[in-house]
């Protein structure tokens, strides 16, 4: 048997209050693609951050080609040929692609030889078909291009162990396919590739060997030959899972929201929304599919009043609501559940009670300039009970709760205000399966109460399970619209990548 390139033995990592990794063993072989599968929070990123020297293990050791090696900093990992594309890219936005790649080349000459670096990048990128402009500034790049920069950087340093943390989360199905071809090419060149994912179908398609993590421990192994979906799910979740919600016949009512040719600028003052038009009726869930970063957040912000529309009209219940203030929109019954729950959604250091008051300080919890504490406390208790939120106490800072409970509190607060329209972004991102089910059921219940819902998601399965109609976004445009029965993964995938019916690129 070949010696493994890397062996991680008995790795344990404790963070205050959590054991992120518990006595994990992992072996990586050259020429193989090793998938690390597990739900969010199961400890995948932590384990690989230990291998790249970013985190120090509490216990355990790492062998490189059979020899014990200390990884006390990322420099040690790089020296041993280990490269990683982190889930949150480690790029410097204001630098060019070439400068970013030069950054990790600590042994180069004192004087920067940008021309040489650019030539090297060009050569590598043509070999792997990773198109990139070395002069471009990173902030100008889309997410999939940023990922390409990260991958090129690993290749540039001739890493032997290539780790990719949830690389497909930011890719369209087509881009995913290209990535897989490249990963295979890298493995065939003798690299050990670690592919981190929580998506079963991808792991099944790509991996030679699978290690499954659950709550910080290895819950099973499998090789390509033994792959069996049912047992993989069981290793991952610890139980069977249910994604077929029983959905009531939908009775959609009047048009609640109508957008007409809405355009808006993004944070970088480039066009982020380009003539977007659609309608949502009462009791309807309208799903927006697309790779994140294609204008979804800007769309939600325009509707919620947090970003100005440059052109177009927004009608709410028949009235012109274009560019009204967030306050006016909230009072009219528009509710917004942003993607960063603990940033824009809730105030992390305040308690559940405070957070519940926060959005209605003018409404039922106010009496002139005074806050009605009793009413707020009983409302908080009611929300916690109704939505089955688990927490120490309603007076505890909300950041102490788990992601699923935070999301339930946020949704609970919004639902209690009986909105006519709810805009939700990536509502289950980062949640475990139990919490996902709970959140989905909340959304379906809201729909039954005749609320119009705009659901932005990057998971096509989620949209298929919840939405009545789907719009696909790419580069700020609405590329197409379907009834959910007519959803065709191939076609939607193509639209997500900007490829229109006639075969051209819709840019």
């Amino acid at each position, binding site marked *: 048997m070949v010696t493994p390139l890397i062996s991680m033995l008995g790795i344990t990592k404790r963070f205050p209050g959590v054991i992120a990794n518990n006595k994990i063993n992992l072996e990586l072989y050259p020429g193989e693609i090793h998938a690390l599968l597990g739900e969010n929070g199961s400890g995948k990123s932590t384990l690989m951050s230990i291998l790249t020297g970013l985190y120090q293990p509490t216990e355990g050791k790492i062998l490189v080609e059979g020899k014990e090696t200390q990884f006390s900093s*990322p420099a040690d990992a790089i020296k041993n040929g280990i490269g990683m594309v982190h889930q949150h890219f*480690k790029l410097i936005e204001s630098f060019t692609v070439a400068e970013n790649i030069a950054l990790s*080349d600590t042994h180069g000459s004192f004087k920067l030889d940008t021309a040489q670096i650019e030539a090297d990048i060009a050569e590598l990128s043509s070999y792997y078909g990773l198109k990139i402009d070395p002069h471009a500034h990173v902030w100008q790049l889309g997410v999939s291009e940023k990922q390409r920069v990260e991958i090129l950087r690993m290749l540039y340093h001739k890493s032997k162990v290539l780790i990719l943390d949830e690389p497909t989360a930011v890719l369209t199905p087509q881009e995913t396919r290209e990535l897989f071809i490249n990963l295979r090419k890298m493995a065939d060149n003798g690299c050990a590739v670690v592919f981190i994912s929580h998506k079963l179908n991808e792991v099944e398609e790509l991996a030679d060997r699978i290690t499954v993590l659950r709550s910080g421990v290895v819950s099973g192994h499998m090789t390509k030959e033994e792959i069996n979906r049912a047992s993989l799910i069981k290793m991952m979740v610890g139980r069977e899972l249910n994604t077929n919600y029983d959905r009531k016949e939908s009775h959609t009512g009047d048009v609640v929201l109508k957008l007409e040719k809405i355009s808006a600028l993004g944070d970088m003052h480039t066009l982020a929304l380009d003539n977007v038009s659609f309608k949502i009726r009462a009791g309807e869930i309208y799903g927006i599919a697309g790779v994140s970063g294609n204008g979804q957040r800007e769309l939600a912000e325009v509707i919620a009043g947090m970003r100005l529309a440059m052109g177009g009209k927004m009608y709410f219940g028949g009235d012109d609501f274009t560019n009204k203030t967030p306050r006016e929109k909230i009072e009219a019954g528009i509710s917004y559940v942003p993607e960063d729950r603990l940033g824009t959604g809730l105030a992390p250091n305040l308690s559940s009670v405070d957070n519940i008051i926060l959005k209605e300080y003018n409404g039922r919890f106010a009496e002139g300039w005074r806050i009605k504490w009793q009413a707020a406390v009983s409302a908080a208790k009611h929300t916690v009970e109704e939505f089955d939120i688990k927490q120490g106490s309603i007076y505890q800072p909300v950041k102490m709760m788990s992601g699923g409970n935070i999301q339930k509190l946020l949704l609970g607060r919004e639902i209690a205000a009986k909105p006519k329209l709810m805009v939700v972004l990536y509502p289950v991102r980062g949640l475990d399966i139990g919490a996902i089910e709970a959140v989905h059921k909340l959304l379906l219940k809201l729909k039954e109460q005749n609320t119009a819902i705009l659901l932005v998601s990057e998971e096509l399965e989620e949209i298929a399970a919840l939405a009545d109609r789907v719009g696909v976004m790419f580069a700020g445009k609405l590329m197409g619209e379907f009834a959910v029965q007519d959803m065709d993964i191939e076609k939607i995938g193509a639209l997500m990548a900007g490829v229109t019916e006639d075969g051209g690129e819709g840019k």
Partner: protein
Amino acid sequence: MSEDFIVSLLAAAITMGTPLLYAALGEVICERSGIINLGVEGMMLIGACVGFIAGNSFGSPWAGVAAAIAAGALLALIHAFLTVTLRANQVVSGLAVTLFGTGLSGYLGQDYVGQPAGAVFGKIALPVLSDIPVIGSILFKQDALVYISYFLVPLAAWYFYKTRSGLFLRAMGENPAAVDAAGINVFRLRYLYIIVGGALAGVAGAYLSLAYAPSWLENMTAGRGWIAVALVIFALWDPWRAMAGSYLFGGIDALGFNLQVLGLPVSGFILNMLPYIFTVLVLVLVLKRRGGRSAAPQALGLPYDREER
């Protein structure tokens, strides 16, 4: 106004701008690495005091500069330990360093207040260059520290934009996590640049007590350290712009001084306020023109902890 008056005003602008330039350049370097140093004023005072004492004791202004560098660097080491190792709030740490430097310099300099300087940087007219009409009298009839600063600015700019270490320096202020993941020791480099910044602030102080106004007075920096901090924003964290800004402020300082000498019917207090009023105006204008956003390094002021999320 005669040509002579303008030439002497511009020459004075450079003299008066030079301490600002040393301090601002140090602050640019420090802030580029992601650390705010509000201890500049304290470091300048310590530099001025220790520089004066050493200059007197050894009878050489160069000994004074060396001592000022060491003293500034030592205070900077405290700031580095607090902000990089202990990850303390950088604003609080900087203010503490300024208070400490102010107090300590007052204590150490007690016996030297009002004493004549034993060693001074005199003006040196550079051969040939100083004969160039107008420019020669402005730029090349200055003292040695001014001439050194002429080299320091292009050197810093070259280092920032053309070398690999300069790339690391700029990157650290933008995203230390990315630099760390690239295998570069963020902690060590931040120590280094904070100390370099402190050393330059020390030289700025020594310039005051050994060249500009050879003497030691308590609080003789009179807020120049704070102007240097503000200058960095005006300079958009760039060495060349820091130079331009320093001379501009030096010029306003000189103008106020000259108007006073000319006996303008304006209160001397108002004229002395000019540079500070100008600082506020410039900050408002710079921020306004950039839509409220400055070009500050993205990670400026944020402590970096590898395992923190």
